[in-house]
């Protein structure tokens, strides 16, 4: 029996999940500080102290995230620079372009680094916003839950494998359910939390059942393996595969719930309204980014072969489903938002609508020939949307803090008192509509262009063109309700007591969000290029060679002239197709396990095959 050596786990892999680890530990620190040392302090001082410590933790995580994504880049650029700090083997490890960690369960590529940065920045804004006023007694728990939810998000967008994906999805949502209900002075918060919980857990159950079918169909939980297997099998069309359709429907339902796509959207308005405004901001932005990325990975990578097996967009394949859902979602969201006077509720419906636009992007991804561009368009949209929405929720924080309500009418005449902020808010709203030259415009532009570019088949293009047309129409509709905010700020007279000045926790997110929106509008290409480099590792398929578990350390066992795993010819052929993505039988039928090797990237256009990790010994 081989001993269980520590070598089967590469400890260096933890380097790439350092931000998550810091954040997780910091959540505990904040919690213990609040319950322990800060207990004796008077309540306001305690709040401030704990909040600042949490912010410091976010700052630390930001630094760690930067380090953990920059050091590999440096190692790749000039390995000698690092030789003072790291050993040769570590540099080799870092130099390797291999994006997958822990036997392929987690990705550690550029995409993860970029989105970790986005999450941590947004989290910083959300935590800062929370400092604006007192809305919960359970302050330490609240902050810890926010931080932990972020850990879930970061890992969700890094997961390459269904077990990790499922658990991080749950981590994210369970923390958010709880955070939603923490405002105990309002009954709506409790109700929102419970509704979120019930809808969310039902959707996880559906999602999980879909995953179980996916596992049953393919025998693996790794996204790349699933994809390879589906690609190697001649897909006749999903109609012939009812289990496949069922799996897709269930997984789609799960994701649909989380991003509030239409048949599953009922929770969103209630939760946004009920939750404390910063939590609502985090539900609307962070969880949406993470879910959409996971969505893209599962559908755009693992299930890509099932996107549109026949030449027919509405034919059997998930693109048709997605197109229909996208169309209904954006229309419903925009129409329902028209009637809202409450800012948070309006934002909720508008975020449903934005979910619809994003689904157009994901649908285009299924049909795309240039996958990275399609994915980059979605990512671009996500980032701009997220920043604009965080800014908009900061306005909600402002209203709630001063007026204890969040009606849009409370913004009346804001431009007289706070011209800078009013203009910033205007910019955010314009960006959310998609007015040039702001970031939102380019987001929509890229998204729709991508959908229009697909010329794979005629019917598909026509449907996507129709979707894009609907999207434009919807953007026009959305102008009405977004501009209602602008009208209140600029054209109405202030009624009643004016709104008090915004201090840093409110002003900073608004200004920063406006800056991002304007900046991404001024030079969309640079952001787009970053997103493209992020999309490349996200959707290319790493080939996972089984990781050695067992006698991994010590001298290699003396080569016994043994082992031939003898398959019948037929099976060798089949497995070869599986292992190489249909590129023919493997050379010489060598043993499937290469010692220490973890992954090798599939040959893509711009990613040449890189040397395997352990083949360059120190």
């Amino acid at each position, binding site marked *: 029996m081989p001993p269980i050596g520590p070598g089967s786990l590469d400890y260096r892999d933890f380097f790439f999940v350092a931000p998550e680890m810091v954040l997780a530990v910091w959540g505990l620190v904040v919690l213990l500080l609040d319950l322990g040392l800060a207990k004796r302090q008077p309540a306001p001082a305690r709040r401030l102290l704990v909040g600042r410590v949490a912010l410091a933790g976010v700052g630390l995580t930001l630094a760690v995230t930067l380090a953990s994504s920059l050091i590999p880049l440096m190692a790749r650029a000039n390995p000698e620079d690092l030789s003072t700090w790291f050993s040769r083997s570590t540099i080799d490890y870092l130099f390797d372009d291999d994006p997958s960690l822990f036997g392929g369960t987690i990705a550690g590529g550029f995409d993860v680094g970029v989105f970790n940065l986005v999450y941590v920045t947004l989290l910083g804004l959300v935590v800062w916003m929370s400092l604006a006023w007192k809305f919960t*007694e*359970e302050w330490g728990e609240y902050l810890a839950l926010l931080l932990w939810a972020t850990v879930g998000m970061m890992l969700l967008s890094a997961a390459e494998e269904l077990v990790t994906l499922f658990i991080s999805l749950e981590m994210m949502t369970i923390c958010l359910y709880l955070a939603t209900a923490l405002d105990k002075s309002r009954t709506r918060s409790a109700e929102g939390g419970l509704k979120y919980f019930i809808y969310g857990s039902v959707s996880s159950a559906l999602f999980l059942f879909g995953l179980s079918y996916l596992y049953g*169909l393919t025998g693996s939980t790794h996204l790349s393996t699933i994809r390879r297997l589906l690609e190697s099998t001649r897909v006749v069309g999903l109609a012939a595969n009812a289990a496949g359709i069922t799996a897709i429907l269930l997984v789609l339902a799960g994701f649909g719930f989380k991003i509030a796509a239409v048949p599953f959207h009922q929770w969103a308005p209630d939760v946004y309204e009920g939750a404390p405004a910063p939590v609502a901001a985090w539900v609307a932005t962070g969880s949406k980014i993470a879910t959409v990325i996971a969505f893209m990975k599962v559908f755009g990578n693992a299930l890509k072969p099932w996107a549109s097996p026949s030449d027919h967009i509405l034919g059997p394949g998930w693109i048709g489903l997605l197109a229909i859902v996208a169309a209904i979602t954006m229309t419903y969201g925009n129409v329902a938002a028209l009637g809202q006077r409450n800012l948070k509720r309006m934002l909720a419906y508008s975020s449903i609508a934005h979910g619809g636009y994003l689904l157009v992007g994901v649908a285009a991804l299924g049909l795309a020939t240039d996958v990275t561009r399609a994915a980059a368009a979605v990512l671009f949209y996500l980032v701009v949307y997220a920043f604009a929405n965080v800014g908009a929720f900061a306005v909600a924080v402002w209203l709630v803090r001063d007026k204890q309500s969040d009606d849009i009418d409370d913004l009346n005449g804001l431009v007289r008192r706070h011209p800078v902020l009013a203009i910033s808010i205007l910019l955010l709203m314009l960006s959310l509509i998609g007015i040039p030259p702001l970031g939102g415009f380019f987001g929509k532009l890229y998204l729709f262009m991508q959908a229009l570019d697909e010329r794979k088949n005629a019917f598909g293009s026509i449907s996507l063109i129709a979707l894009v047309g609907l999207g434009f129409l919807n953007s026009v509709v959305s102008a009405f309700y977004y501009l209602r905010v602008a009208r209140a700020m600029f054209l109405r007279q202030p009624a009643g007591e004016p709104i008090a000045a915004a201090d840093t926790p409110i002003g900073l997110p608004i200004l920063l969000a406006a800056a991002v929106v304007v900046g991404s509008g001024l030079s969309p290409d640079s952001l787009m290029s970053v997103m493209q480099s992020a999309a490349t590792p996200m959707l290319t398929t790493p080939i996972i060679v089984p990781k050695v578990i067992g006698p991994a350390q010590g001298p290699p066992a003396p080569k016994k002239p043994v082992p031939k795993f003898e398959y019948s010819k037929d099976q060798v052929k089949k497995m070869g197709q599986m292992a190489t993505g249909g590129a023919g039988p493997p050379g010489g039928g060598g043993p499937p396990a290469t010692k220490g090797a973890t992954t090798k990237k599939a040959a893509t256009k711009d990613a040449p095959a890189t040397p395997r990790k352990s083949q360059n010994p120190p």
Partner: protein
Amino acid sequence: MIRVLFLVIAVTGLASALATVLIKNLVRAALALAGFFFAVACLFVLLEAEFLAALQVLIYVGAVSILLMFGIMLTRGVQGTDPASRPSAWRLPGVVIGLAVFALLGYAIFQETGLGTQRAWGAIDPRPAIARGTVEPGAPRRRAINDMGKVVGVELMTRYVVAFELAGLLLTAALVGAVAVAHREDDEPSRGEPSRIPSDPPITTSP
């Protein structure tokens, strides 16, 4: 023989599941749920995953059922019945949807022919027995693992280490959050009094 065993367990399990869904008395429903959990654990044993069966009993029957019972005790009359419960408008559509889902799933199961090297789901062929060592070459089908605890442990500490740690964090978060959410503040009313928390003003929607 083993098929009969399966059928007995399956029928018991489904009956308990139905009872859980149908019985009005919540404590009895929770008891039926515990029965369902136990039946599922028995199925795990039939699937030669007795490690998981033990986990299932330990966590579901030992902890989750108890937690649910506490929840029932704390939220309604001690005997668990609620006279105020009204019939749901969703009853008929709910049942129809459920049956439709079952029909779809059943169709999917029997229609699935297997991708790649895999067998059809509806195939009736014996699984490889739990043989120690003997592996028929050329059959990439799974054999059972007997010392599951060890194998799962190693897997959790190598390949799935992130998921494992995250599960720990998730439990911590759930514990902390549930306590924070559920603990009673001093100014809250005790049982029987109306809530003193003012209800929020109605939400305005323009026509």
